[in-house]
């Protein structure tokens, strides 16, 4: 039984918790609020009271369950092996079943489902965004801040919406001479609408390695924003659409460049669709050949090193929670960075500490999100590097925002953007010599 269907699915998980409170040592939210309800132990107790019938699900309970970035640091520190990530997802789904979805989230997730309307909205947004957003002078990328506070604070820095989405900018199939294999690229929303530069870098690196890339036009949002907030219906619809879109084009493997997308393809789709044998089989088939791009380049290709050129950067790497703890990928991006000539990798203090973005968490709890990001900004500043690499566009946004607000001059890039830069430098070096 999956966590999305019933609270009963986590009964055993709850019984494992011995209330030792070790989760308090690592929870980024508890560090800020110092209230028991902020930490896993507190929310586990609430779910226990609900299951034992001592109290009923309330709207207030849903508010408390929103206090989690799902960073999974507590999982790692738990002596009893409690998977709190499962518990929180089940609790949120139950809260939505019993008390409904927050109205703002309802509108947002419905929009995600309506792909064309959403595309149109985003396109219109790219034209009219100047009305709401104010440009910030930044030498690395186009950033903006809200002109007025619409309830998410004015602290957050946003990347400007791209004039053209990645999927409209690139053809559906990008061919190469003598392809080694054909890879499907799941772009995810942030790369499609905001960070098209990451998307282009992924395609560049793959084609450089003689891989044909197919980007199905009708792929959708990964659905993680909906599933982590308990909107199982929307998440399920999106999972189906994605599976069908990729099934239609077919590919030897599927790559993603964001940690949510990876989590979705590897784990969540199968869990959401467990009651539909046909779709479940499809989800499992694709789960087996889904890879994060860094994992793919290290273990499946392996990527060409002889054509890499020099990139003079001092880089520190931030581990996205859902890539590191969620998928066990932390060595691969570092291996890629270390293989690039000229790149000096300098580790920050707590590379694996949550940046505080956590998708819609940062919109619902903007102040907490900013407080959490301040630790990250300070750790980055201490490294005296010029570049922060990471493997997730959502983290990139949060890191950029934090650094901008503290006036720390660092460029934030996806690991693969630096690799693409190195291939470009290599081509140039070869031309010049």
């Amino acid at each position: 039984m999956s966590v999305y269907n019933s609270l009963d699915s986590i009964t055993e998980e709850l019984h494992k918790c011995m209330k030792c409170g070790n989760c308090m040592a690592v929870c980024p939210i508890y560090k800020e609020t110092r209230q028991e309800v902020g930490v896993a132990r507190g929310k586990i107790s609430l779910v226990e009271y609900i299951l034992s019938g001592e109290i009923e699900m309330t709207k207030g309970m849903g508010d408390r369950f929103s206090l989690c970035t799902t960073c999974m640091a507590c999982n790692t520190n738990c002596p009893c092996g409690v998977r709190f990530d499962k518990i929180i997802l089940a609790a949120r789904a139950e809260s939505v079943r019993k008390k409904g979805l927050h109205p703002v989230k309802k509108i947002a997730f419905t929009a995600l489902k309506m792909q064309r309307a959403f595309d149109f909205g985003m396109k219109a947004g790219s034209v009219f965004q100047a009305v709401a957003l104010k440009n910030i002078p930044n030498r690395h990328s186009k950033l903006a801040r809200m002109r007025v506070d619409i309830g998410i604070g004015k602290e957050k820095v946003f990347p400007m919406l791209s004039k053209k989405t990645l999927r409209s900018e690139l053809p559906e199939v990008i061919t190469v001479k003598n392809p080694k294999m054909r890879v499907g690229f799941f772009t995810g929303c942030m790369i499609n609408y905001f960070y098209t530069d990451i998307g282009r870098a992924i395609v560049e690196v793959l084609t450089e390695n003689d891989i044909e890339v197919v980007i199905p036009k009708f792929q959708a949002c990964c659905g993680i924003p909906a599933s982590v907030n308990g909107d199982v219906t929307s998440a399920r619809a999106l999972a189906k659409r994605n599976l069908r879109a990729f099934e239609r084009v077919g590919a030897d493997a599927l790559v993603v460049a964001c940690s949510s997308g990876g989590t979705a393809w590897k784990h969540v789709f199968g869990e959401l669709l467990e009651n539909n044998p046909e779709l479940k089989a499809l989800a499992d088939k694709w789960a087996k050949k889904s890879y994060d791009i860094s994992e793919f380049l290290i273990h499946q290709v392996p990527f060409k090193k002889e054509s890499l050129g020099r990139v003079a950067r001092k880089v520190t790497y931030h581990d996205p929670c859902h890539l590191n703890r969620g998928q066990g990928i932390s060595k691969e991006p570092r291996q890629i960075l270390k293989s690039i000539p000229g790149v000096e990798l300098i580790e920050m203090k707590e590379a694996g500490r949550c940046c505080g973005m956590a998708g819609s968490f940062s919109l619902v709890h903007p102040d907490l999100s900013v407080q959490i990001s301040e630790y990250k900004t300070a750790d980055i500043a201490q490294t005296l590097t010029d570049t922060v690499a990471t493997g997730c566009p959502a983290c990139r946004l949060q890191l950029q925002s934090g650094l901008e607000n503290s006036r720390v001059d660092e460029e934030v890039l996806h690991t693969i953007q630096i690799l693409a830069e190195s291939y470009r430098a290599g081509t140039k070096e070869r031309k010049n010599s």
Partner: protein
Amino acid sequence: MLAREALQELVQVLGAENVLTEQEDLLTYAYDATAAMKHHIPEVVVSPLSTEQVAEIVKIAIRHNVPIYPRGSGTNLSGGTIPIEGGIVLSMLNLNKILEVDQDNLTATVQPGVIIQALNEEASKCGLLYPPDPGTVTTATMGGSVSECSGGLRGLKYGVTKHYIMGLQLVLANGEIIRWGGKTVKNVTGYDLVALFTGAEGTLGIITEIIVKLIPAPETRKSILAVFDDVDKAGNAIAAIIRNKVIPATLEIMDNVTIQTVENFVHAGLPMDAEAVLLCEVDGYKEVVEREAVLVERILKEQGAVQVKIARDDKERDLLWLARRSALPALAQKRPTTVLEDATVPRSKIPDMLKAIRRIATKHNLQIATFGHAGDGNLHPTILTDERDLEEMKRVHLAVDEIFETAIALGGTLSGEHGIGIAKMKYLDWEFGEAGVAALRHIKEALDPNYLFNPGKIVRRD
């Protein structure tokens, strides 16, 4: 029921943001880390930001006659923070400043909400150490560990929390703020009230500031692991090490049940049929550590250890400690409920205690694994069970009774480091007799006649 006026007064003193009254929040202060303990929901949770606010809260509690339950991180193992009579939970977590590290006097002054690890990180910047290190060092607060007089792994050489508390600022049950002790090594002015309030489990006064003793951090350390095929041989080895004038910083023991569970869990390379494993760490100046390590190795072999391993570097040290560090997690994952006791005996009685625990386990058909701080006689018999199995829980309670009975018969004590709280109240007269329990009650009533502070803990009201 808490009067509406009381609530209004609390909000006035603390601001609404520091007063929690919603059910969803209150429910999360109804328990602590103690296994198989009934929870109780408080009526309000308040988080003061200063000593003066604590005094104001106490005065409000006096006026409205509601109990106060002080709470740090709620990691104690005796029900010490459960608000058994409702009332006010006083969360000290926002009083979390390290006020000073004084290198000349080797002291630190901290607020009670400081996490022990945070103090150690600050002290280590000056090459100093605060030795008490309970298993909860990364989560427990200073206020909580002073109130429970926490022990930990370094008790044998460095002692426990009470050996490091030099001064306290407190709010008494009449709302007065007082200070006792300070930065002087010597202080015999009046009764030793710092000692009295240390380990009082928040039943006598509320700690609002703590002055602790720091020591120079040891230069280096060395770990040695020894495997025994006989519990008595391990017991003799412990005695022999001490007799040879070596005082290790830590001297830990794990029994056969623990070894098997750990080995299945982490594969640390321990023989499954070993009856006991000793893990010893010596620390200090490099030359001394080298000499002591060699000596300990020789003693362990002389006492019949079937295997002795010395860690040559930090990596090997971590490997040796892996088994010990994994003991509780490994046991905790075996069954849903983990009843962790801390009955303590003179260290010469460790083999007797281990054998008695095994007898008790067989008698009541229970899984009991024992590990703990052999060097200071503080064992952790750990009963692996399931709260939902009521019949088994009955046997668990009988076994716990017998463990305490045995510990006291061997010249030991009910609790080495977890405290009495609610969990061990009923056993007190076994150790003290009626007269002893009455004396405790007289002290409680002299300082807190109306049972305002943490009522229902340590002493029962008549």
